[in-house]
């Protein structure tokens, strides 16, 4: 429902019920359910007679009231009695709670009405002093500045251009994983250190691929990495138990 439906100034079925309870001057915790149900239905019928669409929430509440009333009329065993009390207790709880929030809303309204009388001042518009840089401009420095901008822009454009040569990947993670696995199998229980995996004339790319491969292996095939303290070489072991399981 996109807009609030308010019939005769009632915010909803709970509002209408509270109104009926107050009109009958009865205690909210001790509602004579049959009287209230009759009055509630009467109200809804009045609206329907006036050809007004009654919001579904009001109908739902009517059904709830009728259910409680029906259960109260039926001859009952112990179980059904509890059931009926539950339904009514739930409704009472809801009514009590709603009534409190309604009161709070009146309090908020009185606060709001008071505060509506306060007028705040808009800040006067004064252009802000952004930066206090002395402006010394001569044609020469302007030219320099313009050239520099053009040059920078050119570099930028070059950087943005697609690469002309596509370099083949020299090292793949899959290959590296196979390689490391082989080294580890040969090394057996003692394992290998990270530095042992890096041969002397290794290039930066291969170091990166080696590290990525190790991380991948830790995730997937249960490697154990041991390091005694930070920033030193570390030892790589295979998880032996897992290996045996395979």
């Amino acid at each position: 429902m996109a807009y609030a439906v308010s019939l005769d100034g009632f915010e909803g079925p709970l509002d209408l019920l509270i109104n009926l309870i107050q009109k009958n001057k009865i205690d909210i915790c001790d509602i004579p359910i049959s009287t209230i149900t009759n009055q509630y239905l009467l109200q809804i019928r009045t609206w329907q007679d006036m050809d007004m669409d009654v919001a579904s929430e009001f109908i739902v509440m009517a059904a709830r009231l009728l259910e409680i009333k029906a259960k109260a009329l039926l001859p009952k065993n112990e179980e059904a009695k509890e059931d009926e009390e539950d339904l009514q207790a739930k409704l009472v709880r809801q009514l009590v709670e709603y009534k409190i929030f309604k009161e709070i809303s009146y309090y908020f309204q009185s606060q709001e009405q008071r505060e509506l009388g306060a007028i705040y001042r808009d800040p006067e518009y004064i252009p802000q002093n952004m930066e206090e840089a002395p402006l010394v401009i001569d044609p020469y420095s302007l030219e320099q500045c313009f050239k520099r901008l053009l040059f920078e822009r050119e570099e930028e454009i070059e950087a943005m251009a697609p690469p002309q040569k596509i370099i083949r990947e020299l090292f793949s993670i899959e290959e590296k994983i196979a390689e490391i696995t082989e080294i580890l199998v040969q090394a057996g229980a003692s394992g290998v250190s990270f530095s042992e995996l890096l041969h002397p004339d290794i290039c930066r790319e291969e170091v990166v691929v080696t590290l990525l491969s190790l991380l991948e292996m830790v995730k997937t095939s249960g490697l154990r990495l041991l390091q005694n303290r930070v920033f030193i070489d570390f030892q790589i072991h295979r998880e032996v138990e897992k290996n045996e399981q395979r």
Partner: protein
Amino acid sequence: MNSDELAGIIEGILFGAGDGVSMTELCRCLDKPITEVQFAIEILKQDYQSKARGIRLVQVKDSYQLSTKPDYYGYIKEITRHQEKTGLSRAALETLAIIAYRQPVTRLTVDELRGVSSSSAIQRLLDRGLICDGGRLEAPGRPILYKTTNAFLKTMGFTSLNEIPEFEVFSQGKQESFDLELLNNETENKGQSGEDLLANMLEKTMGDAAIIEVAQ
């Protein structure tokens, strides 16, 4: 620079800024410790209590702003010819009441408590900036949790959420026994003149300042 002068400068700053100015900003531009600034603000506040002043100091959380006194609105509107300001609708007020006391809360809870759909009321409150998204409930559909904003505090004339009357104030007894006047008087009594009061405020201020300093 004595406290009176400091109070004068703060008044100037607040008038000039128009918008709210935070305590941190005040301390920075005045280059004074928080206790001194708060003391000066108390002097200013007390000065404004006088019927001879048409301006008051509004505090929301730790932000300060000047506004005209609501009591004098009747006269002011004769000159400004503002269009009559309208308040919130009943549906919006009920929704706001539930969100204020149950926050953070989902739309579904509001619907259940009111017994009607509240989505349009919530939308209006969001539009007016009185409530905002306060995260998600870890439940199926991850519904939005709503909470009140500083604009809510300002609209209702509260300094902080702690200033809102306890829920029990409303739940105890019947509607008749709930006295709005009493509540309003309570807030006004805070502004009685007298040196005792200033001393009390200073004490309270010092306490607050200590808390703020620890927090920083």
